[in-house]
């Protein structure tokens, strides 16, 4: 019952409720089919991305003789850790896994230690040269980082840093740093400046205001940035291969085994699985920050 006309409607015992408008909500056949098509497309694309991961996983968990068997079944006949263990016990694998973790951790620490202050500065202050610095950082992305490794290797030999995990971590930090700076900047922009100012008026100095307010609020984003950096280091192959001889990271070891020694197939498949497994976790943790991490686009 509406009072649209402005006249007073006397209360009535029976209220005329217009029938529900169903026509507009009722999906037409074409709409349903179109919607269905979208799902089919989305699922097909998902298959394209997931199938290879499934296949490398069953390869890694098939017995070695099945890896060489032909034709293979798409559904594994038997699951065993034999192949994975063969890889696991191959020379250098365990040590290089440890190396990868150490290099990744060092890279995360360096990148955040050096990059986060810069990101904070770009996010919080307006100062002369701010835009130029931002632009400079963006342009570093236009340089292929592959070419860093060769002169760095030469330098490292003279600095006694060749074949050290520190050296690899520094190279990885240099590669990650531009992204770390821009990503942390966008994280700190998300923490309103007024919050820190409020803390300052309530008795904090600048550093304490940062620790008490900005840090806890930026923490989830910084954690995602850390994982991003770790993933970059975990996956980096070229520099790690060039800058090390015996202290290989996992991808460097695998690459050199494949390229130089011609490692057997079970080794390769198990290696592929070992490299990929953490990515599932990385992306799962970071899925909410995907666009902040990788979607960074010039304003």
């Amino acid at each position, binding site marked *: 019952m509406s009072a649209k006309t402005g006249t007073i409607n006397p209360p009535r015992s029976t209220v005329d409720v217009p029938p529900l408008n169903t026509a507009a909500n009722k999906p037409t056949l074409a709409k349903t089919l179109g919607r269905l098509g*979208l*799902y089919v497309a*989305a699922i097909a*694309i998902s298959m394209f*991305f*997931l199938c*290879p*991961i499934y*296949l490398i996983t069953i390869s890694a968990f098939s017995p070695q003789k099945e*890896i060489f068997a032909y*034709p*293979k079944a*798409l559904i594994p006949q038997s699951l065993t850790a034999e192949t994975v263990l063969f890889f696991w016990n191959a020379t250098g694998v365990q040590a290089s896994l440890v190396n990868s973790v150490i290099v990744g951790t060092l890279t995360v620490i*360096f990148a955040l230690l050096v*990059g986060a*202050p*810069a990101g904070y*500065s*770009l996010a*919080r202050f307006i*100062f002369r040269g*701010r835009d130029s610095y931002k632009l400079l950082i963006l342009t570093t992305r236009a*340089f*292929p980082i*592959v*070419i*860093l490794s*060769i*002169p760095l*290797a*030469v*330098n490292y030999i003279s600095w006694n840093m060749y074949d050290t995990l520190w050296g690899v971590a520094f190279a990885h*930090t*240099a590669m990650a*740093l*531009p992204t770390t700076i821009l990503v942390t900047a966008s994280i700190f922009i998300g923490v309103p400046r007024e919050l820190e100012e409020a803390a300052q008026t309530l008795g904090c100095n*600048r550093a304490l205001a940062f620790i008490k307010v900005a840090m806890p609020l930026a923490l989830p984003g910084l954690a995602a940035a850390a994982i991003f950096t770790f993933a970059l280091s975990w*996956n*980096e192959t*070229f520099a790690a*291969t*060039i800058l090390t001889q015996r202290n290989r990271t996992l*991808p460097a070891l*695998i*690459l050199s085994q*494949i*390229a130089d020694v011609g490692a057997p*197939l079970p080794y*390769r*498949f198990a290696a*592929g699985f070992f*490299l*990929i497994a953490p990515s*599932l976790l990385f992306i799962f943790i*970071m*899925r909410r920050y*995907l*666009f902040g991490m*990788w979607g960074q*686009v010039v304003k």
Partner: protein
Amino acid sequence: MATPQVTGDALASNMLAPPAANRSFARSRERALPFLLLVPSALFLVIFFAVPMVQALILSIHSPDGAWTLQYFERMVRDVNFTDAVRNTFLIILVAIPLQFLFAIVMGLLLQNKLRGSSLFLYFWAIPLAVSDLAAGLVWLAIFGDRGFVNSFLRTTGIAPIAFSWLSYENYGTLLMAVVIAEVWRATAIVMVIVVAGLQLIPPDYMEAAEVFGASRWQRIWHVQLPLIRPSLQVALILRTILAFQVFAVVIALAGRAMPVLASEAYNRYGELNPNGAAAYAFLILTISLITTIVYLIVLRTSEEEMGQ
């Protein structure tokens, strides 16, 4: 409590000379703070980025005995694999990148449709973001290898009983196809993320306005969404192309030495204890990347007015 003040006092004092500028130690430290925070990163980038870039150039034109020379470039060009490496790199880029963009745009638009489980789709599609090129190569090796899943499938279904060597040097076409598929699988995600980020920035008003004025779904995509994400596409294109010139491990994992590319040649020179030769290749990659970036920027230039900024 309050008494009227002389209203003109602020005005009258305007006539006076301004007081001396304030100075204090605490305040100048405050003013220096933004720069101090930048110093570590600037130093780091100089030592581990800028200097090596210059050194790469010097390495490529300076022999160990101290002479300036172009011999490394001459040797590079004369190398048996050089032409192949250039051709392969460019072919991979020319085929893979358009496919990546096509896929990424389709994926981005699909995600805009608020499908049930779209966050799950996004997760699946984003996984390759954290997969290295080496791992991607190994994954597709399991599929395209001689005893791989493709051949197994073809045999089991009876389509092709005889195993086909997809990755062999003799079958250049299928080898290239395998590398391209692996690249599309690995590197579409980053483009997709940039596209989605761009699409999310479009105010819904624009799409609704277009709908009100009678634009069909396809017209809205073609005339509203795609033009508006052009800057995002441009950035993604530059980023992807630069990364693609460095493609390396995926090729080695799939093809071994059967398919030389620029970065793998640099790797091989280095492995032959020839850092100067490696630097020459590295420098070639840098030059090509920069030229491509500049060409993109010129060809795809979007004027600021066009973007309404």
